[in-house]
């Protein structure tokens, strides 16, 4: 067994399981490996035995098998189906856990562009191709792209999420081990696709605190305060803070509520909705308002949009405006 152990150690040395979900994924992977190796070994041995035993001219009996063919077929079909469904269930269960982002996680904005990762923290720090996180402190990444589709892939975390232009997509991870882990762009994105490599640095709480002290904010203010400036710069307040509320609805407390745009049913005002409402306003006309909001697509850059969304999410509903739900 020493060679097997050596190979296992060799492989896991290359690919540590450094996130909360990684051991779960590896568990299913290991079961799949064991089942597959068993199937391949059994079928290979069986086939080789058949080839030798029933070679042309051998004396082995060729009498018909005494069991009806349909019974054997039914056994094969049922057996295969049951095993497959077990794997389906396990994969879907863990996948649902991966996709269910725990509420209230600290956020890091990551913008993909040909060919770099632009990383912005809520307090104004900014890095390229490196993400610093604290051990055992799960974070949510808010991902967007400025050009083509990229994919944020950290093998050591078993995390991968395509970063699609025109969308705000989130993923999360719970870094359980300190160390430096590669980020690869997994979706082909052009000339320097293979150089779009970064790293997640997982620091112990003490090292992380030291790093926070050391790393100076590169951007003025927090994401929320920058978002407020963008909000003012593009004149959002002129309509959305209209005292009569006739030009446009108030945005205070909008995040997380249900809205009813014309022709679009009921939509939860999540990040994707806010994003689309800013960039593609005509898609969501609100009943009762005569003006159509201009579209800001191509005018506000994706990092500015994420800052703006951070500001919109921070707007708490003032007690007086309870009835002003759009």
């Amino acid at each position, binding site marked *: 067994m020493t060679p097997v152990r050596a190979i296992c150690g060799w492989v896991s040395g290359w690919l540590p399981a450094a996130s909360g979900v990684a051991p779960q994924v590896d568990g*299913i992977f290991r079961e799949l490996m064991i089942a597959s190796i068993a199937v391949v070994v059994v079928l290979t041995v069986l086939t080789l035995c058949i080839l030798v035993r029933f070679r042309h001219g051998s004396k082995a009996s060729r009498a018909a098998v005494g069991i009806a063919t349909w019974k054997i077929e039914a056994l094969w079909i049922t057996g295969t189906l049951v095993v497959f469904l077990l794997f389906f269930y396990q994969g879907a269960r863990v996948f649902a856990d991966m996709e269910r982002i725990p509420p209230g996680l600290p956020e890091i904005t990551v913008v993909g562009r040909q060919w770099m990762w632009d990383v912005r923290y809520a307090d104004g720090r900014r890095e390229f191709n490196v993400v610093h996180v604290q051990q055992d402190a799960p974070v949510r990444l808010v991902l967007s792209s400025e050009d*083509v589709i990229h994919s944020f892939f950290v093998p*050591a975390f078993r995390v991968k999420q395509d970063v699609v232009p025109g969308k705000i997509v989130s993923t999360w991870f719970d870094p359980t081990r300190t160390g430096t882990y590669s980020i690869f762009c997994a979706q082909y994105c052009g000339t320097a696709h293979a150089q779009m490599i970064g790293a997640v640095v997982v620091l112990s709480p003490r090292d992380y605190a030291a790093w926070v002290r050391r790393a100076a904010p590169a951007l003025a203010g927090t994401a929320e305060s920058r978002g407020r400036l963008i909000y003012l710069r593009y004149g959002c307040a002129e309509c959305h803070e209209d005292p009569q509320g006739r030009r446009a609805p108030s945005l205070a407390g909008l995040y997380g509520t249900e809205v009813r745009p014309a022709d679009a049913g009921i939509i939860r005002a999540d990040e994707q909705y806010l994003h689309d409402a800013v960039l593609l306003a005509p898609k969501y006309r609100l009943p009762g308002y005569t003006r159509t909001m201009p579209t800001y697509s191509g005018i506000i850059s994706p990092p500015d949009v994420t800052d703006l969304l951070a500001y919109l999410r921070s707007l708490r509903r003032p007690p007086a405006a309870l009835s002003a739900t759009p």
Partner: protein
Amino acid sequence: MTPSAVPEPARAAPSYLGGRTTVASWLGTSDHKRIALLYLFTITFFFMIGAAAAALMRWQLAVPTLDLVTSDTYNRLFTLHGVVMVWFFLIPSIPTVLGNFLLPLMIGARDVAFPKLNLASWYIFVCGGLLALYAIVVGGVDTGWTFYTPYSSTYSNGHVMLMAAGIFVAGFSSIATGLNFIVTVHKLRAPGLTWFRLPLLVWAIYATSIIMVLATPVLAITLLLMGLERVGGIGIFDPRIGGDPLLFQHLFWFYSHPAVYIMILPSMGVMSEIITTFSRKRIFGYPVMAFSILSIAGLGFLVWGHHMFVSSQSVYAGVVFSFLSFLVSVPSAIKVFNWIGTLYRGSITLATPLLYALGFLALFTIGGLTGIFLATLAVDVHLHDTYFVIAHFHFIMVGGGVMAYLGGIHYWWPKISGRMYPERWAAVAAVTIFVGFNLTFFPQYLLGYLGMPRRYMTYPAEFHTLNVVSSLGAVVLAVGYLLPLFYLPRSFFRGPRAGPNPWKATGLEWQTPSPPPPENFSETPVVTGPPYDYPPL
């Protein structure tokens, strides 16, 4: 059952190879057998172009940061490899060469239903191929064979439109061939050849033809929309002008996943023919084998979303597509069991076609099992877009598809050429290909699990060892693929005469001289029994 040399007939009967042999007579032929050979030459040519691109890529990847080619060239190489191998080799391979040659022979017909359309299909295919070649010669395309938007529609600076036009045109060849085969199977079966007496290769080609006719138009539409955006600036896929990038992926995979079955179903048919012949036994569970082909063809249309688990499509869609992907793999597994069941208590001769079939069995099983890994949602998140996927689909399409294609070429070579191939050389080639294939692609599973993404021309040093093994394997594989290019043409002229039925097989194609006369059968055969009706042992 060792094939014995048959003495030269005193007066050679006129075969489809004889008669008029001018170039014009070949280029103007409507004989399905001659058209099959036209396709054989054409796709062998494309295979060599695609293989040359692969060789350059494996050379580049033998060292982590080699500068054999620039990154833009590398991106053009993998696009070329994918486009040429998928649309100009794998999709046409078994249907247009073996299908064209054998379908009328296997159902006792004189030709396909529309012989002139059949020739037109070849010309359309060649036009599409020339457009694609022209796109390569004038500078190439760097989008990958998947043409994902908005990269392809807005950002790429390659000759995307020319390449897409080539694929668009070649698609019509697929549609015409599919239509031709469907009508042929419906209308031209010999008396007594009921549906459940059809050889399984005919079932497989029939199911493949249905996929070609139904799925290929969607590809045409998708490429057209991409072209409208690229040339006309109409916002369909690029979000900056109001489009949705994921719409392209849905449309593309709605064609391209069924296309995987266009590539693998015919090889399953070839497998059934070879295994029954060389175990001298009826196929185990004929109805299940026929229905599994049809259910794979049907379910294959409902699993496209499993290419998009991490694309940000809805979680619920992911769960449904995962479930359907598990379902579609059941009939494939059943087919593997039934082939082994056919060998059991047979009378087995290890001739070269069976070697290829056994190679298929091993590689297709591994490829299928790793497909289960990828259908498992949580595991796919890690493996998606890594070398694990590359290894998986090469095991299916090359380990399965190409092994069966070569097995079929050898099995029917006596029928096509009238002569036997050299058994020893052929066996050496089959074993070389099997060993080379495993050396090339098995390490890629490990690379993928370790996280190496696909379409990387340089990579971190920890992936070096496995890439070296893979590149060395590619050398072995290349030797294996080159061998038949030497001994098959030689045997075409010099091989010993095969006679009508060297394998003593039961199919109708073996009941006419080798090579067959232009009209296939001197009198229409009448079928009175089930397929693979070998005498009890």
